[in-house]
């Protein structure tokens, strides 16, 4: 396994472990804990950075020649592919978030607006403005 491959594994495993623990603790604490805490997120990020630095230095100490070697053409190709996959992931995540937001806002309007007005709730619900889901969201789904 090359130094860069080891480094990529360190990144993936440390991120999975530390963020996994962070999100598990947030979910486990529940909504009564007060929700988002900037301090604990900051601690998580610092722990992640420190762990990655320590592990990468440890690997570099054991394989100094590989660690010093510059990236070759295959490393660059792997990096480009990884970037493309990562970018596709973030793009899909953004689309999913937008889709979720639209569906949620549409549901909220249908449930909340009739309660504000008096009269037949079904009538209000029917007169609500339409919230069409964009075609690109449907293609993503």
């Amino acid at each position, binding site marked *: 396994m090359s130094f860069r491959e080891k480094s990529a594994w360190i990144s993936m495993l440390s991120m999975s472990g530390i963020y996994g623990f962070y999100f598990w603790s947030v979910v486990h604490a529940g909504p009564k804990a007060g929700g988002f805490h900037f301090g604990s997120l900051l601690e998580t990020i610092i722990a992640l950075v420190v762990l990655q630095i320590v592990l990468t230095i440890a690997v570099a100490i054991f394989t100094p020649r590989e660690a010093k070697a510059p990236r*070759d053409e*295959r490393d660059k190709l792997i990096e480009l592919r990884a970037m493309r996959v990562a970018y596709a992931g973030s793009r899909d995540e953004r689309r999913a978030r937008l889709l979720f937001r639209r569906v949620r806002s549409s549901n909220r309007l249908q449930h909340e607006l009739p309660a504000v007005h008096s009269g037949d709730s079904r009538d209000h619900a029917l007169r609500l403005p339409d919230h069409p889901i964009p075609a690109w969201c449907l293609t993503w789904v």
Partner: protein
Amino acid sequence: MGMIRNEIRRLRFEHGEMTQQELAEKIKVTRQTVNAIEQGKYSPSLEAAFRISAVFGRPLESVFHYFQDE
């Protein structure tokens, strides 16, 4: 899709049992890349292919062979 095969492994042994690491240093790539090229998992760039054939002092087409699927 075609397929590229090579004679690198044989040529390395014919050149004083050259190791993958030694070849990698001569053509300025990593040992893992040489291994991937040898196993046919990675097709090198034209520049790297010329460097490899220069190391062995052979023309490019005697180091790399292209087989086209029918």
